């Protein structure tokens, strides 16, 4: 397929070998990370253009390199260390880091950025609460290169939370654009890309294309390997595939499903594969009929055709899993998890609930082919067990609203935890009021274990707690865990250095093109 690129040399003569071309499915919604919700394209770009003080390290798994969520190291910072009580964390900045404006990154920038985050009352402010940071005063500038974070309580998750929150704006530049009505220069940041990260945005055409160039003002190790990266927006997967085959793009970030299997056989293209902790599940609302009855939940858990989904949706490129804790997460255990595809048991479970037939809607994300396919497979089998499902794709706004209202009886979720730890998992998914707890699940025992885990540091003790958690969850079945699909990324053969991000956000600095 690569040979096809010859005739249109006119179109592809421009970019040199030093340029990598990446296709994404959509343009980022805004450049201002303080005001962006869950937008994967945006978050990925932010990881590469904002200076993050600390980030995950890299480790090897099998024959691929992956981000090591257990090992968080300073990047734009010299160091980030707690005091003995683990309540005050000191951030020492790397000297000589330059924003595109030429301003050096100072402690004042960090302070201004954190003040802005608290004022924004959005993303960062939200997760900072989990580590006891709620007020701007808790961030204290010590000197030009030192900042202290005074947490209300010690937390095992501080590094993880700060790894995703400690990004810094060029405050000197920002203040030039601040006005009385807009003290945090929101309007300016909405339109102007941040600077100072591994890459600077050298050109951005709204909706269309973004050109990143390596930041020469970064004095630290692990600088960007490719001078220029072009990110173009190609919404249609079929179109991305054609361009990858023809060699007009080097990395395609929007290709899923069958296409991946096909591309493995295409000349000039390789598909990077790795096991991932991406978990596909159906969350059942324990407070909405009919799934408020544990037997109905069990019935569904028996009715889901796990093997068939792995085959039909993922082409066997996914791992079956038998616990609500993801595979590869420390503490994973299959003890007491009874569920597998078994229609007889499903019918029995339904009968145990005293009902012969139930019906519900099954919500999934509109425009998510994978979820749609899963929904179709589940619907067909569930029907055989007496569970009638109405497939309901929802657009992001409606999905968001209904999730907030906790009014979805049944929904498919896909995602990976940014912190590979059961405590984090409980915090985000299974304790009362947790953000990802769409099931509205709560269990006093779990709450107890969760509280206990804050102060449990011994590995074996934690493991014991986690086994307990898993058996409780297996009895309560708030979720049906479908599988853990592997990570796949189709790239041109010349692309090297890919590090598989465990948070799904590509670190482009590792990428290089071998000419």
């Amino acid at each position, binding site marked *: 397929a690569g040979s096809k690129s010859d*005739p249109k040399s006119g179109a592809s003569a421009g970019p040199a070998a030093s340029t990598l071309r990446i296709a994404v499915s959509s343009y980022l919604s805004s450049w201002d990370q303080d005001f962006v919700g869950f937008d994967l394209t945006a978050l990925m770009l932010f990881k590469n253009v904002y200076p993050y003080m600390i980030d995950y390290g890299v480790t090897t798994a099998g024959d691929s390199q992956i981000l090591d969520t257990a090992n968080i190291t300073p990047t734009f910072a010299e160091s980030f260390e707690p005091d003995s009580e683990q309540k005050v964390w000191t951030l020492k900045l790397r000297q000589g880091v330059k924003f595109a404006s030429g301003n050096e990154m100072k402690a004042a920038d960090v302070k201004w950025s954190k003040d802005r985050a608290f004022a924004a009352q959005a993303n*960062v402010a*939200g997760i900072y609460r989990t580590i006891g940071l709620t007020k701007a005063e808790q961030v204290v500038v010590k000197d030009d290169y030192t900042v202290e974070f005074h947490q209300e309580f010690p937390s095992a998750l501080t590094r993880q939370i700060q790894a995703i929150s400690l990004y810094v704006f060029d405050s000197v530049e920002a203040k030039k654009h601040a006005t009385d009505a807009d003290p945090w220069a929101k309007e300016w940041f909405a339109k102007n890309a941040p600077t100072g990260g591994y890459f600077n945005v050298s050109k951005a055409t709204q909706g269309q294309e973004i050109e990143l160039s390596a930041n020469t003002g970064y004095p630290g190790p692990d600088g960007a390997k490719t001078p220029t990266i072009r990110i*173009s927006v190609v919404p249609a997967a079929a179109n991305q595939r054609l361009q990858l085959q*023809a060699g007009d793009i080097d990395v395609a970030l929007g290709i899923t499903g069958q296409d991946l299997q096909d591309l493995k056989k295409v000349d000039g293209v390789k598909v990077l594969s790795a096991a991932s902790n991406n978990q596909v599940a159906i969350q059942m609302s324990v407070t909405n009929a009919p799934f408020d009855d544990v037997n109905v939940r069990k019935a569904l858990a028996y009715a889901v055709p796990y093997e068939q989904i792995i085959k039909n949706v993922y082409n066997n490129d996914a791992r079956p899993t038998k616990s609500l804790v993801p595979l590869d997460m420390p503490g994973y255990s299959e003890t007491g998890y009874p569920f597998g595809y078994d229609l007889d048991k499903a019918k029995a479970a339904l009968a145990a609930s005293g009902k012969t037939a139930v019906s519900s809607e099954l919500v999934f994300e509109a425009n998510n082919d994978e979820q749609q396919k899963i929904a179709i497979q589940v619907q067909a089998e569930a029907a055989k067990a007496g569970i009638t499902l109405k497939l309901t794709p929802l657009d992001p706004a409606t999905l968001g609203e209904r999730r907030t209202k906790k009014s979805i009886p049944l929904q498919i979720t896909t995602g990976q935890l940014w912190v590979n730890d059961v405590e984090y998992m409980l915090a985000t998914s299974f304790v009362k009021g947790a953000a990802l707890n769409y099931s509205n699940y709560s269990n006093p025992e779990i709450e107890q274990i969760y509280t206990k885990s804050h102060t449990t540091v011994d590995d074996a003790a934690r493991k014991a707690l986690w086994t307990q958690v898993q058996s409780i969850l297996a009895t309560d079945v708030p979720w049906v865990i479908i599988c853990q699909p592997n990570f796949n990324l189709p790239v041109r053969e010349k692309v090297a250095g890919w590090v598989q991000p465990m948070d799904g956000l590509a670190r482009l600095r590792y990428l290089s093109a071998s000419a």
Partner: protein
Amino acid sequence: MRILRFVGRRLLQLIPVLLGVVVLTFLLVRVLPGDPIRSILGPNATEADAAAARARFGLDQPLWKQFLDYLGGLFTGNFGTSIQSGSPVSGEMALRLGPTLELVVIAVAIAVVLAIWLGIWSARRADRLGDHTVRIFALFGNSIPEFWLGLVLILVGYAALGWFPAPSGRVDPDTNLTPLTGADLVDAVLTGNGPAMASAAAHLVLPVLTLVIGVLAPLLRSVRASALEVLHSEAYAAAAAHGLPERTLLRGYLRRATLVRLPSLAALVFGTAIGSTVLVEYVYSWQGFGQWALRGLLYRDYPVVQASVLIIALCYVLIFLIADVVHAVLDPRVRI
């Protein structure tokens, strides 16, 4: 002078229509299920955070107040701030409108010219093989879903033959085109950027072709029918009976009389095309107005939806106004 008065009167008539569109859209987006705020807040946001965000966009105000603010903004050209991106809607819209208008205007213009030419050709050979062939082909084109046609054209024109650039944008970024209007070909011409001109033109070919094939049939049908009507009219027969030469007949007696009915249909076609380019934009990664509006809608970005509906409606009514003026110019019988 008379034309100006007519245009003035018609512009006045537009006011209630546009006002109606504004009110309807305003209410519609608000009764739609879905929360525009939740999607810009992280999953950990509390009700207080959401309320703060709502206040930032004035969504905590009573409905009538929101409406008056919006209306007031419109009069000063302020379409509000996009909830998703945080930047002013007018700026984003300007960037998105250019490419789409460029696409639609070029496509409809080509389709109209082609329809005129083919339609008259076809009518003059009415009921011969050529005529039948042209019409059946046009009908075929009209029967293929645009997104499918787009994909096929990409497969053939780009993947198999390699004649056209990758369908991933509107101009090669290496041409360093300075965007002015957003319509890349226009910008290239304005800035005298030769390579950009070539690149923009090359990128336009397939999407324009897709649209042209989609809209040609109704235009062609109309031109052919009116040409036939003229050819069968007493007026044309009279001119022919007086022995006027072919060229004079074609230019003086057939063409203008044929075109009289075309403007309003062309306007209709333009209107539907601009409303439905979203599909073509998707297939060709065109990132124009349609994609922007659709995304705004999916995320319930109220100001974006309101602005895009208003602009489409405005384009629509303006193009009809233009069509009426053109009609009046073409047809001396029209009283304006």
